């Protein structure tokens, strides 16, 4: 795809420039992301659409600094210190249950704040967020004691805890039925309404993608912005 034309008036939180990611083993060589360039600005709501194995997760991981590209460059213009990206500026929500199983719902939401050293306010902030997303009733439950939909909402609440400016959600509704998925997205948008947080959601569900302002399509590692 051609390079995106950046809007100079927007503040860019993540930028990928000609990024390529290759997974190589002794027998196989897989190009997961091929020459992708894109930018995420503050307040963006982006759907990353593509079939399974198209490279969505890999691109999100590259944008979130979880992995390094084989070629090209990923940068975060607002945050030069890469070691400080997560959880202060960027948060992930995964497709599969990703809660820390030995910890309660409240402790899971508290975790990013403790990683940031915000010990004093952590518990209060975690309770506030849980209340905002309507989960205060399950605060003391363990992940295995709640439903899949609740677990994803807790994971989203955890992503919000440190007030990041970019949330990367990798098929967060992949394990949910359609109605629950829509309800989950409603909760997400409601929580983000007053925030300038950018959101990139990887999905293969067009109806979910349609609820986000921008769409990127990826197929066989090749990214196309619509």
């Amino acid at each position: 795809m051609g390079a995106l034309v950046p809007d100079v008036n927007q503040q860019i939180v993540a930028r990928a420039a000609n990024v390529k990611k290759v997974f190589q083993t002794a027998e196989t060589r897989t190009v997961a992301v091929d020459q992708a360039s894109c930018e995420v600005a503050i307040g963006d709501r982006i759907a990353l659409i593509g079939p399974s194995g198209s490279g969505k997760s890999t691109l999100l991981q590259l944008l979130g600094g979880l992995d390094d590209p084989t070629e090209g460059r990923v940068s975060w213009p607002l945050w030069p210190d890469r070691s400080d990206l997560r959880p202060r500026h960027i948060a992930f929500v995964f497709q599969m249950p990703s809660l820390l199983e030995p910890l309660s719902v409240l402790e899971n939401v508290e975790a990013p704040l403790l990683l940031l050293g915000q010990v004093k306010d952590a518990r209060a902030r975690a309770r506030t967020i849980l209340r905002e997303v309507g989960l205060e009733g399950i605060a003391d439950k363990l992940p295995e004691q709640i439903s899949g939909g609740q677990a994803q909402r807790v994971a989203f609440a955890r992503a919000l805890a440190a007030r990041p400016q970019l949330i990367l959600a990798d098929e967060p509704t992949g394990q949910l039925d359609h109605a629950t998925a829509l309800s989950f997205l409603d909760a997400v948008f409601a929580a983000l309404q007053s925030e300038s947080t950018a959101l990139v959601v990887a999905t293969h569900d067009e109806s979910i993608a349609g609820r986000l302002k921008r769409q990127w399509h990826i197929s066989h590692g090749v990214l196309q912005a619509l």
Partner: protein
Amino acid sequence: MLQLWLAGLVRRVQWRILGTIFGVAITVALLTSLGSYISSSTHSLTRRAIAHVPVDWQIELAPGTNPSEVRKALLRTTDVLAVQLVGYAGIAGLSTAAHGTTQTTASGKALGIGSHYFADFPSELRVLTGSSQGVLLMQQTAANLHATVGDRISLLRVGLAPVVVHVDGIVDLPQADSLFQAVGLPSNAAPQAPPDNVVVLPETLWHRFFDRQASLRPDSVRIQLHVRISHALPSSPTAAYTAVTDRAKNLEARVTGGATVGNNLGAQLLSTQADALYASVLLWFLGIPGATLAAILTITIAAVGRRRQALEQALLRVRGARSAQILQLAVAEAAVVAIGGVALGAIAGWVIVGALGISLAPVWTGIALFVGALLALGTMIVPAWLQSRETTVVAARSTVERHERSLWERVYLDAILLIVAAVVFWQTANTGYQVVVAPEGVPQTSVQYAVFLAPFCLWLGAALIALRLIRGSLSRASNTVTSLLRVSAGNLAPLVAASFARQSHLLAKGVVLVMLAFSFALSTALFNTTYNAQSRVDAQLTNGADVTVQTHVPFTSVASFRSRLSGLPDVRATALMQHRLAYVGNDLQDFYGIDSRTLAQATTISNAFFANGNAAATLNSLATNPDGVLVSQETATTYELHPGDPINLRLQWPSDHRYHVVPFRFLGVVREFPTAPKDSFIIANADYVARTTTSAAASIALLRVSGSPSATAAQARKLLESVPGVQVTDIETATREISASLTSVSLAGLTALELSFAVVFVVATSGLILGLSFAERRRMYAILCALGARDNQLRAFLWSEGALLLIVGSAAGCALGVALAHILVAVLTGVFDPPPEGLAVPWAYIAVLFALAVAGTGVAVGNAVAVMKRSVTQTIREL
């Protein structure tokens, strides 16, 4: 399917499979090497015990029996290496006239021996001075008669005129008790004291003097055949005893009342039975905890991957696999572990046994292989079978424990076991029991297995109570736990505490495993070090000091004697002792004159030597009371002595060779003393003895050396080679030659074996278990990484767990190890002679052990962090 499954296992969970193989291999290697060591030790104990029997059989001929007939029957009964005819004749006494006085002794014995007797039975007679041929006078008799080589003495025959002979040599009879035993008495008969006066004559002379006496007074003369038989006997003392006794009975049956066998070899084997049992008890006492720990380690390693196994099985069930098919996969996995573990363990066992210089015991190897295979199959198939019946995918995925209180918790089995341990130990330690019982007159020994109850209950009770307490402490995630965790986890302490609380059962098991590994290492190290130190004390007690010089003729020039010996290289201290004979009433006892102020510089004086348990106070009391004397418990009891009581002894004065009364004052009871015999003896101040007997002559020198005792002994021999009757011994040789006691069982090999395994256990529990546990929970750590945990935060999380295992496990393990070592020493007190005053601590080993445990934990944590950083996206993809 099977191949696919196994290939998948090798690709994905190779560390868990290798870990379990490692656990099985340790168990097999430990059992193989330990069993082979026990087998070899028993064999060696038997071999060494019988090697020093001076005369295997003393066959006493009935009056009128033809010795040739018995000799023929003997040759048909067993393999004979040497036979000598020995005559025993009772004599009314011996007398001599010297220095204008006539000395006459009480009754005694005249032995008649052949010219090859010295060669065939070298340890029966020891020449102190003069010739080994001709007329030989026993040392004590020579002292009584004031006779020496060249003197004429009269033998006062029974019912015949005295005969006069010239003394050709002075000898010592180290085995007098067995030499003069009354053959044929029942085994429960009271032992008979050997005669005080003995003269040894050449066979022809003896016959010339006593054949007539045998006709006149047949009750005063007897004939024995002294026999050395082949020692090709079974390795077990019990089997060897049975074999030797059967042969003796066979001989007696062949000669139908013509002879009775005094079975010294059988008696030695009988006493060795107890030693062998002690040895077995000792080795098992030290070895069983190791083998148990190895098995627990294997089970724990296998259990680390149980969650994953349960998940995989549940998924297979969802996809329609039957229980039988799932079990088939588990059996295949177990077979891989069993074959790998058993093969690796057998090779390791073979290498270890080779390194110890012993041979592989086939029976033990078979047992070890069987146990290893059983362990592998049991630890992998049984849980798989249980899981195949119960687990759902959701339940299998859970990492949070649903722990219900076990039966042992509900009935407080831990507390009950500890109480039982305390009561049993208190009862057994205070009632003078013996682990190995050898009832008088019964040719069997047995082990009181009840004494094992105390350490066993302590071991199990401590493990269970630690499990309860640690889990209880962690599960509450209390402020105290959180505060403590701040040291390692900093801001993450609340999270770590919460995580610990939800996994308290798993963590508590890890801590208890580390605790058991440390307790095994420490109890083994403490016991073995104490044992080895005590073996040296035993050898020092037997030898007297590092190097001991004893002379038949006392040195009158004491200062010269001391300075010559002190001038030898490596000699750090020298102490001289007088050795005399003294009468206590009618009982002749060994008497030692010492300098109580300087003696301890030259040798080790143990508290256990004295009834009051205080060597320093006793020697000080002797130093401040010039006429003070220490006697045996038997003497003190017989004469109803109390501290401060006057006691008159009759000591021999060198000037007139007569015994004169010397007044002493009783200070206390002495049980053992360097160079002194095991039975009664007397200790007094050398200065007082010198003053009252007008002679300071000393005949024993004790040397403490800084170099090799045997090298100094060789130099001392060279220095004193011109002095007749000098005997120089060293502690190294004495240690090797102690063959009749259990302390001759060298623990050196076992110590090396056990301490090496203990190190492996500690590193495995602190490092391997932790590493495997981290690997199994990498999903959680990957999520933490994805959330943004930095390296130091991840490390803090991991180190908190490592520190919990290491600090709590090692502290509890050390406490349990010390307690077990104390119990072992108390329970096996019969092993020690004298008993130890305290535990000897191998600080260097303990330091190395801790360093390795910390290193093991560090490697596990470092590796987990590195792996997580390398593969976080891969792990996340697996979420």
